[in-house]
């Protein structure tokens, strides 16, 4: 309630606050006294400033006129003496100035500037005496008047008169002091009167302030002010009493609301009563909503708890699976490295195999050329053997015709024919062998060519395997990194699920407590019989 009425008024001033804040926080009496004091101070400052200056100027004007008048009188009086150059009469005339207490010097000078007569000649200024300056340091404190003189005889001259300002200054200071003392006296008296009037005027307000402070402190047990006056303060006191009664009723209703009774209404009319009744109505609606919401919240907290439990279990299983997969990926990565090394080795072997098969192919081509040459030579040998066979046969015939003489030749021919026959048979065998060798060479060439193509294919495959393995290793590394990230995420997820589970448990407890608290409110007549709604288990 203190917050609603604002902070309490403090009589202490804060040094860091400005004069406006200071004036706002003062009491009304202090403000009134300060106002009157300020007005009086202004008026008195004006009086102290204006009147002494005015009087000083008047005194200066009076002194000027007096000096001028005295000089004029001296000029008129000394004119005959000037005509006759009568120093004695003029000196006598000037000596009459001794009755005055403020004339410092006086002199009558001829037309040529020489002094005819002088009063206090030692005080004359240098331009008047024509001699050295007498060293008077206070020439500024002397009022000098020069006035021309013309005698009836036609003689001319100058009368010079010096009057001291000291007296004038003393009078001015005396007048100023008197005005200041009088002003201060008036100020003090006016301040005392202002304080007295302020005390009388502010007393009912001070009482209302005290009562308001107690109300602000929560004490509504104050008696009514009962101010009898009919002025503004009295009307304000009556309104204050009425406000106090309304506050008491408001306090009682608020106390009932605080104890959970949201059924009653405030009988105070006006915006405050309407606002209070709307507030209570809103609280009633809010309490109903909070009651419903607390039940739903408890149910939701239970579901969240269950879901968090399941999520925690799932995340744990996922984490274990991901960890296993991570190990597998690590093994796969290591295998990929081995495969890459093996593929590099296979690539080298395939390239060497390709070179070897190409060399073999060249060798087999040369072997085929040799076998062709051998076949040609065999054909020549076969022809020779065939011709030998023919020769042997015909020789045998001729030996037969020769009779007994050709018998030995016949044997030689027979032997030669058998030799040719064996040669032919051997050539045939060799030809078969050569044919086998050629066929073998052809098949070997084909096999070598196939091997070369296979080696090329193997080389290309090994190169592709190397590239693919490299990509696989890169991809596996990225996948492994991803798995590690997933592991971290899942670990955080498990932790978060655990926290969610604990939070859901706490939320369920809070929701049940909230439902129990809300159940204490009486929002309708029916709820009075069953003030505590059911809470979620």
């Amino acid at each position: 309630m203190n917050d609603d009425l604002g902070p309490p008024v403090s009589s202490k001033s804060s040094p860091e606050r400005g004069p406006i804040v200071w004036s706002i926080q003062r009491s009304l009496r202090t403000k009134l006294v300060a106002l009157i004091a300020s007005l009086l101070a202004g008026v008195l400052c004006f009086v102290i400033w204006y009147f002494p200056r005015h009087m000083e100027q008047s005194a200066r004007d009076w002194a000027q006129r007096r000096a001028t008048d005295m000089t004029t009188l001296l000029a008129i009086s000394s004119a005959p003496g000037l005509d006759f150059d009568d120093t004695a009469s003029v000196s006598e005339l000037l000596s009459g100035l001794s009755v005055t207490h403020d004339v410092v010097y006086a002199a009558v000078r001829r037309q040529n500037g020489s002094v005819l007569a002088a009063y206090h000649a030692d005080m004359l200024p240098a331009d008047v005496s024509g001699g050295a300056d007498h060293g008077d340091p206070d020439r500024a404190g002397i009022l000098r008047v020069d006035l021309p003189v013309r005698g009836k005889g036609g003689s001319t001259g100058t009368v010079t008169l010096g009057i001291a300002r000291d007296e004038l200054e003393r009078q001015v200071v005396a007048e100023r002091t008197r005005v200041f003392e009088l002003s201060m006296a008036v100020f003090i008296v006016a301040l005392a009167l202002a304080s007295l009037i302020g005390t009388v005027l502010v007393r009912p307000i001070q009482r209302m302030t005290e009562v308001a402070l107690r109300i602000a402190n929560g004490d509504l047990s104050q008696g009514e002010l009962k101010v009898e006056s009919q002025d503004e303060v009295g009307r304000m006191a009556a309104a204050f009493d009425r406000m106090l009664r309304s506050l008491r009723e408001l306090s009682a209703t608020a106390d009932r609301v605080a104890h959970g009774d949201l059924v009653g209404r405030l009988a105070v009319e006006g915006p405050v009563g309407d606002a209070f009744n709307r507030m209570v109505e809103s609280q009633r609606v809010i309490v109903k909503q909070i009651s419903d919401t607390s039940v739903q919240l408890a149910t939701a907290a239970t579901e969240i708890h269950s879901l968090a439990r399941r999520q925690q279990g799932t995340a744990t299983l996922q984490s274990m699976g991901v960890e296993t997969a991570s190990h597998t990926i690590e093994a796969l990565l290591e295998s990929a490295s081995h495969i890459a090394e093996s593929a590099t080795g296979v690539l080298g072997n395939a390239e060497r195999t390709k070179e070897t098969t190409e060399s073999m192919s060249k060798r087999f081509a040369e072997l085929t050329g040799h076998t062709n040459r051998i076949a040609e030579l065999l054909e020549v040998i076969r022809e020779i053997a065939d011709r030998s066979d023919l020769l042997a046969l015909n020789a045998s015939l001729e030996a037969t015709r020769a009779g007994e003489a050709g018998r030995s030749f016949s044997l030689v021919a027979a032997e030669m024919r058998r030799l040719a026959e064996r040669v032919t048979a051997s050539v045939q065998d060799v030809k078969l062998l050569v044919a086998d060798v050629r066929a073998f060479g052809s098949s070997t060439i084909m096999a070598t060519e196939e091997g070369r193509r296979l080696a090329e294919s193997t080389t290309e495959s090994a190169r592709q395997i190397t590239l693919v393995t490299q990509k696989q290793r890169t991809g596996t590394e990225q996948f492994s990194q991803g798995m590690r990230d997933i592991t971290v995420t899942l670990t955080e997820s498990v932790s978060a699920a655990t926290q969610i589970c604990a939070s859901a448990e706490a939320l369920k407890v809070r929701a049940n407590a909230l439902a129990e608290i809300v159940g204490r409110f009486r929002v309708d007549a029916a709820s009075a019989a069953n003030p505590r709604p059911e809470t979620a288990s």
Partner: protein
Amino acid sequence: MDEATPSATRKLIPARIDETWLTFDADLVQEITAGRAWMPVPRASALVPGVVAWRGRAVAVLDLAALAEAGPGRREARGQPRHRTVIAESSDCFLAMPVDVVHEVQDVDLARVRAREASAFPHAPTEVEMFGTFAAIVDLPSLVRAVFEEGALGGHDPEEPSR
């Protein structure tokens, strides 16, 4: 050759055509040459299908394979060049006989010569055991007569119109 002339031995030249071994009297054989292609004679007999050139003269080709066809011989090698050609003379008639294999002159004891039993070659009344089989001893004069004079074999190609 005159078989009536008594001799302790008989000089024979064995030759093989397809699977059939034959023998010729060495006295009648003039030369053994390499196998050569003979020039076919239009509308000639199947037994003498053409001629070959030998020592500046045209020699009739006697197809022994066709002759052997009357017996168990094979016909598919007929007319084809064979490895050897046996040039023989009988009754002032020269014959060129393509054969596959010819061996040197064999001095055969007459006791080994017997009447034809195992072989089936015509114009070979006798046979001799040689190289593990029985080789017919061709009677070239009889054969020449049969082919060129008597036409006993009627040597016509069955697929050719007879003259």
